[in-house]
């Protein structure tokens, strides 16, 4: 598209700036500024006091401004294997959970998108309904289900599949289950959005050209829903990596996830600078998949 308005008109459009200023201001105030503070804390030193970190800038005698940047916190993340292990483990758990969400959510979304018009809204409501209950309460409910004499074990004992209660709670299994349960709607909704928008005549065209329904699914439906797959996976993966509540409540003492590490640095160790460094590193590492996603999306929709 080469046709544009005259350069002077392009440069001088006050309406555009007003519209853009609102979200910019919002982002600056509630994302940019807090992030700046977190970065600042991550470059300071731990002190006992209030606040529990040192100042970066200090006036020393002779009217000199002294700047002390402490990179030891970031170095620690690299040196102490705890942080790297926790991060890798988090990515692994999040990736597995994302894949499980996709395998579970795709048939759900497809089913809703292909359901009768009058059934779609009720089915979508069923997907969203859990959001009406607090996330925390729902995770606690899983404790009741998974614990030694919980619902799951009692049912399994009753139908005679097991003789001893299974250790379900405080395992990696429970963490995966919790994340898949908690984030499934974030997978289903974007998938539903792309699948319901899909032109049904494309499947008819595929059938007309000799394509069986099973093949048409892989050759037409799945490629068409790629933006939804990418968006859903990102919506599950990114928060799942930093997830703190689920591993804390459902995971075992050896469940190592970066969100939990961050929490304990902050509240248990009161080491704000290291906690801030973990947060900054996490953000930087999570921006990478987002950028990758954007690249993939651009390639999926050439313009």
């Amino acid at each position, binding site marked *: 598209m080469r046709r544009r308005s005259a350069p002077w008109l392009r440069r001088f459009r006050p309406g555009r700036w007003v519209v853009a200023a609102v979200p910019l201001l919002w982002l600056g105030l509630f994302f940019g500024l807090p992030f700046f503070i977190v970065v600042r804390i991550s470059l300071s030193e731990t002190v006992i006091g209030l606040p529990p970190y040192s100042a970066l800038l200090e006036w020393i005698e002779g009217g000199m401004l002294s700047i002390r940047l402490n990179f030891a916190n970031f170095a620690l993340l690299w040196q102490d294997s705890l942080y790297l292990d926790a991060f890798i483990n988090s990515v692994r758990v999040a990736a597995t959970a994302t894949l499980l969400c996709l395998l579970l959510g795709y048939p759900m979304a497809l089913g809703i998108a292909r359901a009768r018009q009058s059934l779609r809204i009720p089915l979508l409501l069923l997907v969203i309904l859990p959001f009406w209950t607090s996330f925390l309460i729902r995770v606690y409910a899983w404790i009741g289900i998974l614990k030694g004499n919980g619902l799951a074990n009692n049912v399994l004992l009753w139908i005679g599949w097991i003789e001893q209660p299974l250790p379900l709670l405080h395992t990696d299994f429970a963490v995966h289950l919790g994340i898949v349960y908690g984030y499934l709607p974030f997978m289903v909704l974007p998938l539903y959005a792309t699948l319901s928008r899909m032109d049904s005549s494309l499947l008819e065209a595929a059938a*007309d050209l000799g394509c069986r329904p099973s093949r048409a699914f892989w050759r037409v439906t799945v490629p068409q829903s790629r933006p939804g797959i990418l968006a859903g996976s990102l919506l599950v993966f990114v928060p799942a990596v930093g997830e703190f509540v689920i591993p804390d409540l459902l995971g075992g003492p050896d469940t190592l996830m970066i969100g939990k590490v961050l929490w304990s640095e902050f509240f248990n160790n009161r080491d704000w600078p290291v906690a801030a460094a973990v947060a900054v590193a996490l953000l930087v590492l999570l921006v990478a998949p987002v950028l990758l996603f954007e690249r993939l999306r651009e390639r999926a929709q050439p313009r």
Partner: protein
Amino acid sequence: MTGSAPRLEAWQDPAAAPLVAIKGVSKSFDRQAAVSDVSLAIYPGEFFSLLGASGCGKTTLLRLLAGFERPDQGRLLIAGQDVTELPPYQRPVNMMFQSYALFPHLSVADNVGFGLRQEGLPRRDIRVRVAEMLDMVKLGSFAQRKPDQLSGGQRQRVALARSLIKHPKLLLLDEPLAALDRKLREHTQFELVNIQERVGITFIMVTHDQEEAMTMSTRMAVMNEGRIRQIGTPVEIYEFPANRFVAGFIGAVNQFEGRALAQAGDVLQVYAESAGTELRVHVPQAVVAGSPVVVAVRPEKVRLGREPPPGDNRLQGTVEEIAYLGDVSVYHLRVAGGALIEAQLTNHTRGAAPPLTWGDRAWVGWNADDAFALVE
């Protein structure tokens, strides 16, 4: 043409086997009949049009042939094979969709080759045939484009190439030209007919555009409310409509309701109140005196002038409306009986002043042979 006998068209030849036989097919959606008891035979090499207003069932009939719908009643035969129960992917039929339904994630070449890939042909053969097909629709240099990088006319040709590449016995076209602008549509009409003659595939086209159906088809079926009202060549449909619906649907027509008076040979005398006089009309069959008859005459068959024109029927009236359309002018004349008669004059001379103007007294006239009677 060597034989002395006149060439017999396939549908006139009792020995010819139809390619498509639709036998008593009905289909309804939510108890609403879309197609009611339709029977139709289409012969190899035909360019057959299903013509009707929207909602007349023409698209449903096409989708029944493609296999996207199952009939409630009746059988569908293609090349002698009963395909009523066959899913679309097993029918020897391809369809060109009104929306074109091109796969947006595939290139032009992959779209066109899609049908061949389903047959498991070697990639090299597919590439050769796709290239041939793209050359035929003059899109050779667009093979690697995506559909959304093409113009409407180019997309239409990709859809055509994709539906022809498997050499189906029958190609179904759902409003193939509806999305094109007028100029391109007229050009594409001829191109489509040329391609059909070149590939020798039988075409069934659904259209709401009577001009399109008339220009392109060998035969057409006029549909209304799920039923076929007449099947015939464009000339038959236009000049010899079987009923008032067909007469009124195709082209403009002057209609006079009346009663049969007397018949001499094949000329019937009809008294029509709205014409204010007796009309003579050519009727091949015998009509009982006193039965209701509609006399109909097309505007271009009506002669118009200040003096009484020669002809079997002559009426005098007043010019009420004049519409100048460039190639022709249309005049509306109010006659004594109250009817408004439409007449068409061809504008032979450039810039000539109109022979008549509003309020002028004038005569219209036509021969009994040029009018037709609809007895119902």
